[in-house]
């Protein structure tokens, strides 16, 4: 592009500073997604253990939890969680929220991951009637590179993590 508003040569020091700052921002974003407890930066997230995890389901409340009956697979966690539903503003469906009954249990990452995955699956089952399957995926030879193994580790828990 021939004419650019920022078209001036930038020194090496400036480049380096910007690179470091940009890289730092990206890492912070990813860390925030992996550990919602750090979303509040250095101050921590003091409500993490009691905060509701929520999805919005594009259905009326009586279709999301008819007669107060939880949808699967949340129903299987019934004795460990509390749930609430309320209409989403603007006709966006129903907000379905859940959290672990015992705040101490919320400090167990695996329990929170299981709840997060259950919420996502419940939404799919209500809206679509099935959970979208992925495996087995046709693929060529998988070489055991560090980057590939790291990506596999991420995708193995990709339905259980996130900022949900």
């Amino acid at each position, binding site marked *: *592009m*021939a*004419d*650019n*508003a*920022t*078209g*001036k*040569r*930038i020194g090496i020091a400036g*480049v380096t500073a*910007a*690179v*470091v700052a*940009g*890289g730092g*921002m*990206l890492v912070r*974003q*990813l860390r*925030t*997604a*992996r550990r919602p407890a750090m979303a509040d930066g250095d101050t921590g997230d003091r409500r993490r253990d009691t905060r509701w995890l929520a999805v*919005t389901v*594009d259905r009326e409340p009586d279709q999301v939890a008819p007669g107060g009956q939880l949808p699967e697979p949340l129903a299987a966690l019934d004795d460990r969680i509390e749930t609430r539903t309320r209409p989403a503003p603007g006709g*966006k*469906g129903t907000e379905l929220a859940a959290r672990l009954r015992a705040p101490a249990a919320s400090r167990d990452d695996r329990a929170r991951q299981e709840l997060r995955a259950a919420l*996502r699956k419940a*939404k*799919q089952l209500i*809206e*679509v*009637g*099935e959970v*979208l*399957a*992925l*495996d*087995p*995926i*046709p*693929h*060529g*030879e*998988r*070489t055991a*590179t560090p*980057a*590939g193994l790291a*990506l*596999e580790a*991420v*995708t193995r*828990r*990709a*339905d259980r*993590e*996130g*900022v*949900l």
Partner: protein
Amino acid sequence: MKAITWRGVNKAAVETVDDPRILNAHDIILEVGLTATCGSDLHLLGGYIPAMRAGDVLGHEFMGTVAEVGSGVRRHKVGDRVVVCSFISCGHCWYCRNQLWSLCDNGNPNPFITEGLWGSPVGGCYGYSHALGGFAGSHANYVRVPYADQGAFPIPDEVPDVRAVFASDAAPTGWTGAHQAEVQPGDVVAVWGAGGVGQMAARASMLLGAERVVVIDRFENRLAQVSRHIGAETLDYTQTSVVAELKEMTGGRGPDVCIEAVGMEAHSNDPSFLYDQVKQQLRLQTDRPTAVREAIYACRKGGTVFTLGVFAGLVDKFPLGALMNKSLTLRGAQMHGRRYIPRILEGMRTGEIRTEHLATHTLPLDEGPRGYEMFKNKEDGCVRAVFRPNGDGRPG
């Protein structure tokens, strides 16, 4: 079956992989007729989108024949000739119901990655990294199509395969840009990038009533295609000042709508290109926003800038001051295919939308790595290399 796979940065190969299977009731298995390379594949090949695993099958723009249907499929039967939307959408969530198909809540089984990068997950896409679902791509003899009643569309008999294949991605992406940028009758529209998507954005702008459409690129053969097949004006940015030309064309105002159809690997004659290139090669800036900056600078006061090219993460030296002080509207989107594909197929049937000129090279699957090399380096005037997995590669 055979498939073209990603083997590492700038490495593609042809490998033997397992046949796909019906996994959900709403799936079909498609025997692939034609499957096109796309400029966005080059971002994967170049390693700019890191969520690729060696062995992943590439390809997201395709058409073919239905080979098998799941028990829940209602709109398709074995033997139907269909084109498939590159984005995977359930058709039942709020975003699908509101025609924002690429934002589907249920089309991406790996929501964590894009939630981390962007704050929310987006829909899935064939052959486009584990960030967009990890689905196998279409550069293979067969491909699984989830939610087939939502994403597969019967091709009118009058439309040849080589025209129809671009109703999968290039044409609806271009249409998404022009429509979501709210091109109005009488508008002047500038489009950065004369690849398949840029050409289709220009054509869509014309069909939406734009009075003047200008496409900007540096490749003579692509600009010639714009003149001959699209009917828009052209600017070669290596030969002139784009901003000065656009100002002259518009009485000093600038274009009403500026559509950026270049993406994260933009080129420029400007010194800022070197800065962007250094940062990106160090993998510490993910995208080169060179064309976006120019679009913001060129756009008329109160106009709209639309980012249609693929961007992944963070950019630097973003002209927020121009955006704010000129009262610009900045929008972006992946393609909301289902909203536009029926209209596009009808346009292809009547002849008002023609795309076959984009397929400059049709090759058998075995020549996949060579096809990508030609496409990447723009060899022999390559605009799009298109593969015919179940044939000899000759145009059909």
